[in-house]
């Protein structure tokens, strides 16, 4: 396999982008990535999107997006793994370059959630329709059950979870792409309206439109496009039981553990080597479970990390310096690529006010459904 680097990135602002359709957002992000690298062509395109079909009635996204990039003729593939669609698109783009099949590949993620679709029902299609959704559970409801299992097993509290939201909004306040860049207080989180007990509104990521794109090429060609390429040194994808009831323990995200294990093994690094990470905080409890599953902290101790500053900027492993899904926004299919852009920017030393000093090795973790799929990537500055 060839070594592979990211050489360019582009993304839209995240938010309620009433004036932009799915294709408009795609074109803005993709052109941004091409311009960032000074590239005028690509050999292949991957489009991560959870549900163009249900959100805006549009499938067959590969050719549509190639067309709107003025690149009809180029191979283009739609990738779906619920909220992990973007991360899986990145993995496939990485594999295509690493294999030698293509040199210049665009990995993108898009989602248009604010065009009038019933978001609760569409998101629920990432859960088990026959065994879960049929009985009236929602997506926040599933994570609420994970939260309550974590609370019962490890003593995690509602306040511990609220600290994750406070921390991520503090980070997001420094990100001009973020949907909700304002800071929130612990009291505001704890007093926000209940969505699915014990999860309140400010424990939940918002409903977001957005697109993100990164350009990949063989490391040996990277200097043609940028002074500061970022190498992809590990990629891991794993599955877990679809239904929460079928997991060995609903408090543990075992697919996240498995995906991390294979990414660490491939990269030849461990959790102690990670200096900056973007982690799938679709709900505050998810960040707590994920930093445990990724090995940043011991199982059961994730609850203390945000409050004590371990995962804050300036802490031991800054997590979600972009603001995370919570503050930056969560256009589901775009999230995995946007995470990679944050780490790419950090490892290039271009993150401005939220720069992690001397960051050399970073990680992204992107999750689908209530944890039935997880994809981890590890990056290194060159």
């Amino acid at each position, binding site marked *: 396999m060839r070594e592979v680097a990211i050489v360019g990135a582009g993304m839209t602002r995240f938010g309620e982008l009433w004036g932009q359709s799915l294709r408009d957002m795609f074109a803005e992000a993709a052109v941004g990535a091409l311009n960032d690298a000074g590239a005028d062509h690509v050999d292949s395109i991957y489009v991560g999107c959870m549900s163009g079909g249900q959100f805006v009635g549009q499938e067959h996204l590969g050719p549509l997006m190639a067309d709107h990039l003025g690149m009809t003729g180029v191979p283009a593939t739609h990738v779906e793994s619920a909220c992990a669609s973007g991360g899986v698109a990145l993995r496939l783009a990485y594999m295509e370059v690493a294999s030698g099949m293509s040199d210049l590949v665009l990995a993108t993620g898009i989602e248009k959630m604010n065009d009038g679709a*019933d978001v*609760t*029902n569409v998101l*629920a299609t990432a859960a088990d329709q*026959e*065994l*879960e*959704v*049929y*009985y*009236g*559970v*929602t997506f*926040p*409801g599933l994570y*609420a*059950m*994970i939260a*309550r*299992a974590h609370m*019962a097993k490890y003593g995690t509290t509602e306040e511990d979870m609220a600290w994750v939201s406070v921390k991520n909004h503090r980070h997001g306040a420094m990100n001009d792409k973020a949907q909700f860049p304002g800071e929130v207080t612990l009291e505001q989180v704890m007093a926000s*309206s*209940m*969505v*699915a*007990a*014990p*999860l309140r509104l400010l424990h939940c990521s918002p409903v977001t439109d957005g697109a993100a794109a990164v350009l990949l090429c063989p490391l040996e060609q990277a200097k043609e496009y940028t002074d500061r390429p970022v190498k992809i040194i590990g990629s891991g994808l794993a599955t877990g*039981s679809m*239904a*929460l*009831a*079928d997991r060995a323990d*609903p*408090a543990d995200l075992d697919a996240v553990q498995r995906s991390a294990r294979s990414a660490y093994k491939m990269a030849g690094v461990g959790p102690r080597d990670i200096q900056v990470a973007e982690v799938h905080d679709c709900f505050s409890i998810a960040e707590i479970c994920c930093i445990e599953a990724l090995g940043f902290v011991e199982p059961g101790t994730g609850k203390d990390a945000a409050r004590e500053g371990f995962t804050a900027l300036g802490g031991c492993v800054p997590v979600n310096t972009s603001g995370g899904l919570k503050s930056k926004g969560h256009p589901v299919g775009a999230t995995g690529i946007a995470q990679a852009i944050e780490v790419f920017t950090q490892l290039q030393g271009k993150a401005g006010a939220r720069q992690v000093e001397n960051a050399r090795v970073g990680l992204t973790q992107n999750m689908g459904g209530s944890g039935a799929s997880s994809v981890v990537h590890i990056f290194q500055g060159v």
Partner: protein
Amino acid sequence: MPSPRYTREIPSRYRLEAGRCKGCGKVVYPARRICPACRAADFETVNLSRKGTVVTSTVIHVPPDEFLMEAPYAMAVVETPEGARLMTQVVDCDPSTVLPGMEVSLEFRLIRKEGKSGILCYGHKGVPVA
């Protein structure tokens, strides 16, 4: 919505039929073709006891449209004495009292009305054991 689906689901939804793997003994609900634990494909049918213990739970305050009139309502993962786990609502009580460890009986109830024609969908719901 086509009706074959509702007929097909009668054994699991109406009779709580599960499969016990002849290879490793794991009880899967509903029955499957292949055992998720040992990949054997030989099962015997078992009827789950109509009771169980709450493993984890939540109270849904923001429901899907079909459940709008019922919110807030409790949902739980319930484990039966046979070791099968299933997702169910827990009703006939204050939803905030439904917490891990609670004992419930599983009772046959209307779950939802589906689609424009309002097809009646049945299944089981948990009710706290007094």
